[in-house]
């Protein structure tokens, strides 16, 4: 089958330029990686704008971009819920309320917080599950990237996989988290530069927003209006969207997923750490420009979608087809480089999260304790190599399982929703006890798994898979919440002296506040207000 897109020398030059810069940046950071803290946490030295953009980009991977364009073609403007309801509140909450405990406690990882706040068992449960999941996800997304480039560009699977693996290995091995973060910031600019041409050309061709209003069916044009009706594009009612997506899934991801939290922990001080997710929330609000507009344009402009679309159309190819439709060689290369950058930085992000949790929470806790820092720095480098090798292995295996990506994300979701309840109670209720935390988390995970099995078996039924997913999160979170409180009321309390800095009410308030224009609360409130305004405008 001939590739969909043909690249010429100029396109390849653009791709090569990016690869070169990545390797050079990694190499130039090599000499600064002197301690474990340098390698795993960028020496806690980065300014807010860098950690903020990295925070956003770590999440804005290529799969997310492609998937959201596909969702927009399928569901229309309601896709904005994934941003304006499903992200902004959580990001602001993390910055204002949770960062003081994360950053102030000087923990190096999310599981380490669980160890200090609850107990070793809780940490182990989180660390092991997260480490396994994240390295497998790295491999699966490597496979998806290679497959995409094979279908669209004709690149050989093996070449793509090995090439990407080697480049990521080099720059993470040399520059650790800093390399990963710098790459994510570069990716941020490339994504906008690569995709905005499609937005402009698409809007021009369909006649702007007026064109959308005239040519698209009503439910596709509203984010909230049709949620309560039978024309509901998402197939989920408002309660599911607000509590399932907006509260549990969103907060569960943004506040506990180490992949994003790690970027905030690399900040140079507590104020930057708190501002990190809030700074990220502003461009996040604008991301619908480059995913929702193209999705709607695809419906009107591409013959494969829109009115003539057969049921079961794969919307995932929408973005690539739009690139082929509008972009001449040159800018086309820029767009492909943006996707490549996103894939690679996604892989790098997973690998840095894995090597940190492996080294500190698994190796350094259960296998060899008490070694000098240089020992763990070396382990980190080995773990980087191992992580990449495992990813390549997983990528190879993934080609025999058709829906592997969906399975991976599903299993990941079993953990995120309950974890948020565990953190919420841990950070804001002094009375949460060690075993309360552990049993709550375990029961929450089992509830998520159980709910899924019942849904697939037909015992539970929902309007759509998405609704099932949102409600599963609600059930899992609630189970964790209730069990944690219940068990806490009957088990031994922690000594409050050990919880200083980890929990609300036992943490001294900082004496000096930054000036008003640098305060997280000010910007966070602004972000929420804009998000609400956007919801009203596009309702």
């Amino acid at each position, binding site marked *: 089958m001939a590739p969909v897109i043909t690249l010429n020398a*100029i396109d390849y030059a653009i791709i090569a330029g990016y690869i070169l810069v990545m390797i050079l940046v990694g190499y130039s950071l090599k000499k600064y990686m*002197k301690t474990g803290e340098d390698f795993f946490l960028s020496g806690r030295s980065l300014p807010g704008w860098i950690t903020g953009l990295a925070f956003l980009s770590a999440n804005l991977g290529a799969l997310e971009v492609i998937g959201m364009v596909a969702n927009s073609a399928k569901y229309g403007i309601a896709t904005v819920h994934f941003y304006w309801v499903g992200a902004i509140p959580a990001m602001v909450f993390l910055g204002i309320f949770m960062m003081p405990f994360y950053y102030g406690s000087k923990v190096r990882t999310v599981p380490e917080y669980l160890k200090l706040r609850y107990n070793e068992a809780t940490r182990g449960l989180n660390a092991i599950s997260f480490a396994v999941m994240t390295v497998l996800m790295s491999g699966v997304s490597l496979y998806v990237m290679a497959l995409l480039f094979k279908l669209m560009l004709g690149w050989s699977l093996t070449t793509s996989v090995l090439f990407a693996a080697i480049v990521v290995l080099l720059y993470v091995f040399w520059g650790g988290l800093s390399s990963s973060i*710098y790459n994510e910031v570069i990716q941020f600019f490339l994504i906008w530069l690569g995709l905005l041409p499609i937005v402009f050309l698409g809007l021009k061709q369909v006649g702007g927003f007026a064109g959308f209003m005239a040519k698209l069916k009503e439910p596709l044009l509203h984010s909230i209006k049709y949620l309560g009706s039978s024309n509901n594009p998402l197939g989920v009612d408002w309660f599911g969207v607000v509590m399932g997506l907006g509260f549990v899934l969103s907060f569960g991801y943004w506040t506990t997923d180490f992949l994003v939290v790690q970027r905030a922990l690399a900040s140079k001080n507590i104020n930057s750490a708190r501002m990190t997710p809030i700074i990220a929330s502003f461009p996040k609000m604008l991301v619908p420009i480059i995913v929702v507009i193209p999705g709607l344009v695809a419906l009107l402009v591409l013959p494969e979608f829109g009115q003539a679309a057969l049921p079961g159309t794969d919307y995932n190819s929408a973005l690539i087809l739009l690139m082929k*439709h509008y972009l001449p060689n*040159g800018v086309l290369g820029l767009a492909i480089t943006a996707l490549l950058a996103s894939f690679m930085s996604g892989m790098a992000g997973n690998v840095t999260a894995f090597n940190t949790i492996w080294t500190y929470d698994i190796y350094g806790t259960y296998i060899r304790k008490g070694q000098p820092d240089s020992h763990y720095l070396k382990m980190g480098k080995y773990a980087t190599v191992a992580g990449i090798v495992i990813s390549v292995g997983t990528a190879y295996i993934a080609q025999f399982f058709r829906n592997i990506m969906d399975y991976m994300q599903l299993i990941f979701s079993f953990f995120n929703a309950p974890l948020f309840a565990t953190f919420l109670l841990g950070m804001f209720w002094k009375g949460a006890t060690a075993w309360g935390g552990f049993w709550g988390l375990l029961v929450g995970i089992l509830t998520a798994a159980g709910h899924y099995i019942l849904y697939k078996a037909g015992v539970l039924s929902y309007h759509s898979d998405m609704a099932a997913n949102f409600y599963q999160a609600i059930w899992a979170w609630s189970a964790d919440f209730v069990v944690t409180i219940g068990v806490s009321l009957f088990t031994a309390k922690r000594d409050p002296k050990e919880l200083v800095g980890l929990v609300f009410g036992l943490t001294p308030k900082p004496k000096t506040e930054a000036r008003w224009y640098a305060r997280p609360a000010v910007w966070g409130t602004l972000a929420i207000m804009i998000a609400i305004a956007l919801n009203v405008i596009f309702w």
Partner: protein
Amino acid sequence: MNDKIETPIAEKGMSQGHILDLKLPIGWLLSAYGVLLTVYGLLTKKEMYAISLGYNLNLVWGILTLAIGGGFLLTAFLKKKKKKK
């Protein structure tokens, strides 16, 4: 009991401060892209741009990218100059 791994105070590592000014690699990369796209846009024929609705997208976008890259470089050099004072 604290079994946290101790991190020695690093004098030459990342904690000495943010050493590689990220504006430089971004600035150089985007400027290079800008030049490449602009020159390519000038050298190519009009027929190629039928798909981009008639606009010479390489020229237009190349100039924009060059401007953004240049902006980063300028900010980086101004900051360096300020520090030298």
